[in-house]
C-alpha cells in the first residue's frame, strides 16, 4: 500500500484495464469461443442501443420504455419519501409511536421488496399500481430510518431551548427536527433512489406491459441478446445519472448549511 500513484500513471493503468476488458470481450465473441448470438461484441451492443433510440421494440422505443418506467419509479419513490420521512420524524419525537412501529418494521424488514410482487399484482394490477408498490417497498426503509435517526440525534440543546419557549409538538417536528435532520434525510433519499431503481427493474421483469424491464424480458424471450445488453446499458446510465444528481443536491445542501462536504 504505497503512496497514491501520480495521475498520469493512474490514467494509463486505468486505460489498460478498460482496454483489456473490452479487447477480451470482443475477442471472445469475434473468434467464436462464445457464440456471437450469446455474447455480441461491444460494438454490436452500442449500435443496437443507437437503433433502439428510434426503432420500437416490444411496442415502444427505448426512450418511450424509459419514460413509462420513470413514471412508475417517480411515483414509488415520492410516495416512499412522503410517508417515510414524516413517519420517521414523528417516531423520533413521540416515543410511543416508535415503540409501536419498530416491531412491525423489524418484522417486515427481512422480506425482500421483490417478494411483494404477487400481492402487488393482486391488489393493484400490473399497470402502474403494482410496480409502484414494489418500488415503494424497496425505497421506504432508508427514508424512514434516516429521518428517524436524524430526528433522534438532534442536539438536545436545540430541543430544550424550543421546549422552554413553549413550542408545541407540530412546530417542534416541522421547525426543529426537520431542518436538523435534513442532511441525514437527503442521504437516506439517495439510498432510497438507488434501491427504488433496482426494485423497478425487478418489478418490470416480472409484472409489467411496458418499461425498460419489460423490454428486456421480451428481448430475452426472442434471444435478442444485443437488445438485452442495450437495456442493461440504459439501466446503468439512468441509475448513474440519478445518483449523480442526488449527490450534487446533497453537496449543495451541505454547502448551503455551512457543513463540510
Amino acid at each position, binding site marked *: *500500500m*504505497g*503512496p*497514491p*500513484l501520480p495521475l498520469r*500513471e*493512474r490514467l494509463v*493503468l*486505468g486505460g*489498460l*484495464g*478498460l482496454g*483489456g*476488458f473490452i479487447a477480451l470481450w470482443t475477442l471472445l465473441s469475434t473468434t467464436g469461443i462464445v457464440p456471437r448470438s*450469446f455474447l455480441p461484441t461491444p460494438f454490436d451492443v452500442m449500435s443496437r442501443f443507437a437503433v433502439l433510440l428510434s426503432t420500437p421494440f416490444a411496442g415502444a422505443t427505448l426512450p418511450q420504455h424509459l419514460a413509462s418506467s420513470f413514471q412508475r419509479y417517480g411515483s414509488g419513490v415520492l410516495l416512499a419519501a412522503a410517508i417515510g420521512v414524516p413517519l420517521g420524524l414523528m417516531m423520533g419525537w413521540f*416515543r*410511543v409511536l416508535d*415503540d*409501536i412501529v*419498530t*416491531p*412491525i418494521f423489524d*418484522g*417486515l424488514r*427481512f*422480506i*425482500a*421488496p*421483490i*417478494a411483494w*410482487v*404477487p*400481492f402487488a*399484482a*393482486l*391488489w393493484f394490477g400490473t399497470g402502474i399500481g403494482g410496480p409502484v408498490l414494489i418500488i415503494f417497498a424497496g425505497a421506504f426503509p432508508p427514508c424512514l430510518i434516516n429521518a428517524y435517526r436524524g430526528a433522534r440525534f438532534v442536539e*438536545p*440543546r436545540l430541543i*430544550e431551548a424550543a421546549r422552554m419557549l413553549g413550542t408545541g409538538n407540530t412546530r417542534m417536528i416541522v421547525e426543529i427536527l426537520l431542518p436538523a435532520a435534513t442532511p441525514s434525510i437527503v442521504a437516506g433519499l439517495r439510498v432510497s433512489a438507488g434501491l427504488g*431503481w*433496482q426494485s423497478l*427493474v*425487478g418489478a418490470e*421483469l*416480472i409484472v409489467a406491459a411496458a418499461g425498460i424491464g419489460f423490454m*428486456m*424480458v421480451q428481448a*430475452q424471450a426472442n*434471444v435478442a*441478446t444485443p437488445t*438485452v*445488453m442495450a*437495456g*442493461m*446499458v440504459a*439501466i*446503468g446510465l439512468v*441509475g*448513474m445519472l440519478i*445518483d449523480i444528481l442526488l449527490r450534487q443536491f446533497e453537496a449543495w445542501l451541505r454547502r448551503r448549511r455551512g457543513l463540510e462536504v
Partner: protein
Amino acid sequence: MKALSENLKSVGGSADMAGRRGWIGLGTVAGLIALWFVLSGTGLVSSARFPSPAEFWVSLTQIATRGYAGGQLWQHALQSLRLVAMGFLVAIATGIPLGLWMGWSRRAEAVINPVFLIIRPIPPLAWIPLAILWLGLGDAAKIMVIWFAAFVPSVINAFSGVRAIDRPMIEAARMLGTPPLRMVVEVIAPAAMPMIFTGLRLSLQAAWTTLVAAELVGALAGIGFVLNMAQQDIYPGMILVGMVTVGVLGWATTRALGAAERRALAWNVAARD
C-alpha cells in the same frame, strides 16, 4: 441545562423504558393479529385480496404436508437456501481477495477500478435476463446473478477495510520482516475483518433479493417459484406463506452471519455490543 439533557438521556436509556418498549412491542404484534382476525372475520378485507388466518393455516399445512408447486415447503426452502449459500460463498471467495488486493496495491486498484465503475451501476436484477439467456432456467443462472449481487459489496468493503488500516501497524509488521503471505493472512485480513463483515451483511441482503427476483422470473422450484405459482393461481393464502418463508429465511441467515461475525471478531471489542 446540562443536567436536564443528561436527565432526558437517562430516562430514554433506563431498564424500565426497555421493559416498557418490549411490552408495547408485544402489544402491537398481538393487536395486529387481532385486527387481522377481525378484519377478515367481518369481511371488511375480502379473502380474495388478503387471506384470513384460517386460510393462511390451510395453505401452510397444505404446502408443509402434501406440497405445492412440485414440492413440500422444506424442499422449496432448502432449494432457495442452497442457491443463496452457493452464490454467496462464490462471491465471498472471489470478492474479498479482489478487494484486499485492490486495497493493498495501488496499481491493481488503478487497473481494475475503471472496469468496476462501468459495471457497478447496473443493478444485479438487470442481469437476470442475460443470465437466463446464457445459462437457462436452472441453478447456474441463479448462482450467477446472486454472485453478481453479493460480489460488489464484498469487494468494496474489503477494499475500504484495507485502506482504513492504521499505517503504523503495517510499517511495524514490515520492519519485523513479515513475508508477504503472512502479511496478508495475519495482518491485513484480520484488520480489515470488521469492515468485511459489514460488506457481508449487505451482500447477504442483496443475495436474497436477487434470488427471489430470479425465481419469480423463471424457476422450477424454490420459494420464489412458490410465490410465482401462487400468483398465477390467485391463491392469497399461499402468497402469504411464501412471503413469510422469505422473511424467516432472511432473518435466520442474517442471525447465522451475526453469530459467525461474533465468533470471528471475538478479539474486537467494538463488534461485541
